[in-house]
C-alpha cells in the first residue's frame, strides 16, 4: 500500500532531525520501520511526516564509555546479538534480541525503536531495566538522561515528549558476581511476540543476594519491576525455596490482561515459571563466574 500524503525527510545530523521533529506536523521518526510502517499500513496511526534517522551517524554504534556500555539508538537487534561487549557483559540482552522476530527483521529493527514503540510485550526493555539502563533523550536545546524504569507511562506511551529523540542507551557494566537472565514464552519459535517475558538480575556477595531486580514484560501496560519479589530476595542466601517464593510473589505483581495470546491465568502461571527460571539461570551465571575466577 502507498501512504500517499506522507513526506519523507532525511536529516543529516541530530540537530536537524530534532528541528524537523519540532517543526513538522504529525511527524514521527522512522528507524527500522518494523513497527511504525506496520502501524501506518494498518491505519492505526496518522502520520504526515516521517523523519528517517538513516543518515545520522551519531545514533549508531555500540561502545564502552567508562564503566558503561553505550548503544546508539539505531543499533540493530542483529548488532546487539553479535556484539562482543554485549555478549561479554550482558549476554541476556543478546538472548533477548535473539528471541525476537526473524532474521530479516532483526537486521532492520533497532534498539531505539523497540524502546520507543513502548509496546508492553517488547523484548528488550525487561533486560535493560534489570540491568539498570538509562536512556538519553535529546530535544532542541537540551538533553537529559532518565532511567529506563521510569521511561514508560502506558501502552505506546512514554515520558519522551514531542520533539524529543532517544539517542542512546547506557548500560552500567554489571558488577562482578552478577548474573542477568532473560526468559520469554511465545507461541512459536520465530516471529512471535512474548506472551510473557521476564528478566532478572542477581548480585551475590559472600553467598548472599545483595541486589536483585525482577522485571516482568507483557503482563501490564508497561514493564513491571516486581519490587516485592525482588526485595524478598535481598539479604538472603539463594535457594530453590527462596526462588520459588519470589516467583510466587512476582506472579501477584503482574497485572496481565487476557488477549489472543493468553489469558490472565496462563500469564500468571508463566510469570511464576519464568521468574524462577531466570533466577536459577542468573544464579548459575554467578556461580560460573566464581568458578572461572578461582
Amino acid at each position, binding site marked *: 500500500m502507498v501512504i500517499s500524503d*506522507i513526506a*519523507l525527510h532525511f536529516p543529516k545530523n541530530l540537530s536537524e532531525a530534532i528541528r524537523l521533529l519540532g517543526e513538522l506536523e504529525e511527524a514521527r521518526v522512522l528507524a527500522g520501520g518494523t513497527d511504525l510502517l*506496520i502501524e501506518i499500513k494498518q491505519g492505526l496511526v496518522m502520520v504526515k511526516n516521517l523523519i528517517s534517522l538513516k543518515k545520522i551517524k551519531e545514533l549508531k554504534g555500540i561502545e564502552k564509555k567508562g564503566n558503561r556500555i553505550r548503544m546508539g539508538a539505531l543499533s540493530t537487534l542483529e548488532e546487539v546479538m553479535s556484539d562482543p561487549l554485549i555478549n561479554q557483559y550482558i549476554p541476556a540482552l543478546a538472548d533477548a534480541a535473539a528471541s525476537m522476530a526473524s532474521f530479516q527483521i532483526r537486521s532492520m529493527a533497532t534498539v531505539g525503536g523497540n524502546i520507543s514503540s513502548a509496546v508492553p510485550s517488547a523484548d528488550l526493555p525487561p533486560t535493560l531495566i534489570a540491568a539498570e539502563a538509562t536512556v538519553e533523550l535529546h530535544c532542541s536545546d537540551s538533553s537529559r538522561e532518565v532511567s529506563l524504569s521510569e521511561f514508560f507511562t502506558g501502552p505506546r506511551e512514554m515520558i519522551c515528549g514531542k520533539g524529543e529523540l532517544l539517542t542512546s542507551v547506557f548500560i552500567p557494566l554489571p558488577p562482578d558476581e552478577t548474573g542477568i537472565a532473560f526468559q520469554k514464552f511465545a507461541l*512459536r519459535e520465530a516471529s512471535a511476540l512474548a506472551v510473557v517475558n521476564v528478566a532478572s538480575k542477581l548480585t551475590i556477595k559472600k553467598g548472599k543476594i545483595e541486589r536483585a531486580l525482577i522485571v516482568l514484560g507483557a503482563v501490564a501496560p508497561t514493564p513491571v519491576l516486581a519490587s516485592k519479589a525482588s526485595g524478598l530476595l535481598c539479604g538472603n542466601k539463594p535457594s530453590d525455596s527462596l526462588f520459588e517464593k519470589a516467583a510466587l510473589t512476582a506472579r501477584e505483581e503482574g497485572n496481565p490482561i487476557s488477549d489472543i495470546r493468553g489469558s490472565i491465568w*496462563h500469564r500468571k502461571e508463566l510469570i511464576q515459571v519464568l521468574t524462577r527460571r531466570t533466577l536459577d539461570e542468573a544464579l548459575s551465571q554467578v556461580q560460573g563466574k566464581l568458578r572461572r575466577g578461582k
Partner: protein
Amino acid sequence: MKEERGKHRIVVLNVNSEEHSVAVKDGETLLDVLRDKLRLTGTKKGCNLGVCGACTVLVNGQPKNSCLLLAAACEGDEITTIEGVAGEGVLHSLQRAFINHGAIQCGFCTPGMIISALDLIKRNPDPSEDEIKEALSGNLCRCTGYTRIIDAVKSWKKYKKTKEPPSRSYDSEKFLTVGRSLPRVDAADKVTGRAKFAADYYFQNMLYGKILHSPIPHGRIKKIDTSRAENFPGVKLVLTGKDVPDITYGVSPARYDEYILAKEKVRYVGDEVAAVIAVDEETAEGALNLIQVEYEELPAVFNPTEAVQEGAPQLHERYKNNINTHVDHHFGDIEKGFAEADCIREEEFVGNHVYQNPLEPHTSIAYWENDGSTLVLYSSTQVPHYVHYMVARVLDIPLGDIRIIRPTVGGGFGAKAATTPLDLITSIASKKTGRPVKMLYSRKEMFLYGRGRHKQYMKFKIGVKKDGRITAVKSKIYLDGGAYSSFGVITAYYAGSMIPTLYMIPNYRYEGFRIMTNKPACGAMRGHGTPQPRFAFESLLSMIADDLGIDPVEIRLRNAMEANTRTCNDLDVRSCEFKSTLKEVEKKSGWREKYGKLPPGKGIGIGCGGFVSGAGYAIYRGQVQRSLEKKPEAFQKKAIFPHANAIVKVSEDGTAVIPLILAAEIGQGAATVLSQMCAESLGISLSRVRIRMEDSDISPLDLGAYSSRTTLMGGNAVVMACRDVLKKLFATVSEIWGCKPQELEAGENRIFHKRDKSKDMEWAEAARRYFNEHGPLVGTGWYKPPEELGGDYKGAAVGTSPAFSFGSSVCECRVDLETGKVKIERFTDYHDCGTPINPQAVHAQVEGAVVMGSGETIMEEVIYDGKGNTLNPNLHDYLLMTIKDVPEIFSGIVDSYEPEGPYGAKEIGEGATLPVLAAVAHSIANATGVWIKDLPITPEKILKALKNKEEAA
C-alpha cells in the same frame, strides 16, 4: 473534495547492478516499486506486513523485507532481487540445489527463501541445521514443510553453477520416468523468479479495483451513496448491489446463495457491499472511504448452538433455524451393534476453524478480447473449470465466450477452490469500463473472504468387543458454516462419509448439521470436512485401546480395512495396504520400545487416515452448459461428461510433445506427474514434454485441483491420449516397415520392432513421417469415473471415488509440563498412495501436510471477538509454523497398486493430512497424561488440564 496527494520524487535505485531512475511517492515501499514500476515481479507480496518473507531482497548484502522499506530511503543502496541472483541463463548452485531436492512446490516463497539462504551461505558456507533454520526464520512456506528446503541449503555445495535449462540435464541414459524422483518441470522458472503468478501480470491501460466490506455482522442495507466516491479523481466506476446481476452463485448448486455484491442484506463482517474501480489501487482504496452506507443493524448470532434455537436471528429465509444442511445416515443397526459391544466409550471433541493461508493472495484480472465478445479472466484459482462455469452463469453468457487463464498459483489448499468475488467483479467491471481490471486481496481480505475449515463440534461413540473389534460407531456433528453455503453441503456429508473407509465398521450412524452463523463462510480445506472427525475417531480409538489394555497399533490392525471391500455406506475400496502402513510406522518409529515407556513430558502417538482419489461425481449436475439454460436435472449414477480430458499434440518436427489439459498446477506437482506419465506412455524422455495447462482456449476441460483427483483422473486422460498418439504412429511406421502395428514398441525416444532389431526409427522421425502423410499428430483421451459408484441413499455421492488412499503417522513430542509448551520432535509416516509417480513429490506432500496438520493441532485458529470481527487476520497473529517449529519428518511409501489408477497411482495430497491431527493429539496425551479434545491444543489448555488433574488428585 480532492485530497492532497503525495508528490513524486525521482530516485535512482541500484537494483541488480543496474541503475533505474524512477518516480516514486515518499510513502511507496520498495516492494511496490520493484514490482509495479520496475516490473521485477520475482519478489513477492504475501502479507505486506513483514512476516512472510516472500518480499525478501538483499540490501547492501543483507536480507530485508522490502515491504517494510520505503523506496525513497533506498537511494544509494545496493539492492539484489531474485532476478539478480544468477547471471542470465545461469543458475546459482543454491538454485540448483532447490531444484534437485524438491524444495519447491508452489514457488511463491521460493525467491525469498533463496535470497535469505544466499546471504547465509555467503557468511557461512557450511551452515548447520540450526543455522539454516535461524537464517530462514523469517520466510514462511505453506507447502513444503520446510524439510527439503533445509536439505537443499545443507547440500548447496554439491551443485555447480550451470547453464540453463537444467531440465535437459536430467535426460539421463535411462528413459523410464514414472516412479522416478525427477525435478519439477516448473522448477527453474520458480527459482529464478520468472514464474508468473496472477499478480505479476500487467496490461496496458489497466485499472484496479477494491471492495468495500461490511463493517457489521448482520444488517439490512438501507441506503448507499456513492456520489463522493464517483467524483473522486481517478475513480472510473463504482459498483453496488444494484449494478450486479440478480443471479446467485456459490458452489453447491442446491444452495447458490451469494450475490456478487450485497443486494439487500449483509451477513458477516467482510460481506461485499460495493466495489471501486480506479486508476490505481491506492485511489480505489481511498475512494472506498467515501462511500456512505446506511445499515439497519440486525441481531447476529455467532455460534451454532445458539443459531439453532427458536427465535435466534435468521441469516437466510430459506434455511429454517439456520440449518443449512442436515444429514442423517444410518447403516447397519447401531442399536444391535452397541448391544454386542463389551466396551463403549463416548467423548466430545471440537475441531478448530483454521484458514488455509496459501502464501499467494487471491488475484484476478479480466479484459475482453475478440472485439469485446470474449471475456479473458486470469484467476489464481485451483478450479479453472468451475470458475468458467460460474462466471458463465452469473454473466449469463455461454462458456464458449469465456477464456479462463490460470497462471502459476501460489498454493490453494481449498482456499481457491471456488469462484471469488474478484473473478466476478473484474469480469463485470472490465466490461463496463472497456479496460483490463485487476483486483487482489490483501492478507486481511483473504481472512474476511474466508472459506477455511469449518469448526466442528463432534460427539463420537464407539463400541468394541473385548478384543478391540469395532461393533458400532455413532457420531453427531455440528458444523459452524458461517454466512453462506459455499462447499458446506458437501463438507457436512464428507464429515460422515469417510469414517467407514479406514476400518471395518459393521454398524454406523452419522448425524450432521451445518449451521449458518454471522461469520465468513467456511469451505473446503485440505481433507475437506474429514480431518476433524478423523481426529476425533482416532483419538477415541486410542483411548479405548488404553481402556482395554490393547496396544493402539494393534487395535487398528484388528479393525483395518482390507482391499476389495464394500463399506457399510456403500463405498468401494479397491487397493488397500493400510495394514502395511501400520506395520511399517510401528517398526520405523520404534513404537514398541517407546509407547508407555517414555518419561513424563515425552510422548508418542499414532493417527491414521485416508482420502478419496478424486470425487466420483462432478459438483454440478448435467452437462457442460450455461446453468441458467439447463433444466433442473435428476441425479444420475454416472458421470455425464468426462472429468478429465487431454489432447496430446506432437510438434511437426516430432521433437516436442505438448499435452494439453486444464488440470490445475497449484504447487502440488500436477504438471510434473502428468508430464512424467506422458513421457512414460510415449516412450520419450521427459525433456521433450512441454505441458500446457493454463488456458481454457487451448486445453480441454479438467475439473481442477480438488478432492485429490489430478494424478488419477488427469493421469488417466493423458495416458489415454498418449495411446491414441502411439496408435497413429504405429500405424504409419508399420506401413513403412511392412509389419503389424502390434509388433511395434516405443521407448528411449525410438520406435522399434519388438523382435526385429533392424527395424528402428527415431521417435521424432516417425512423427515427421506421420505428419507428412496425415497432418497434425494429435491424440485425445478422457477419464470418466466408473458408473454406479455409491449407494442409493440421499448424499451417497459424497465420498465416492475410483480409489482410496491410506496412511499412518506416528508423532513424537516433548511437552514443557510447567508452561504447557509443545515441541513436536519427530514424525514417521507411511502411506499407501498406489504407485508413486514421483516419490520425491509424494514425500514433499507428506512433509507439507505434517507441518500444516501439526500447526492446525497446536497453534492455528481464526479467532473472533464475539461481535463477528476477526481478531487475527494477519500472519503475525494467525500462527503458521515457521521453519524453527517443524519436526524431523520421515516419509515412507508402501508397495501398492491401484488398478483404476494410471500406472497404479492414487492420491497423496489431501490424505496425508488426515493422520496428523490425532497423531499429535495422542502424543501430547501420552506425554502429559491428559487428553485435550478441543483443538488447537494450546499450551494454556494443556497446563489447565494438568492443574485440574493435580487438584483432583
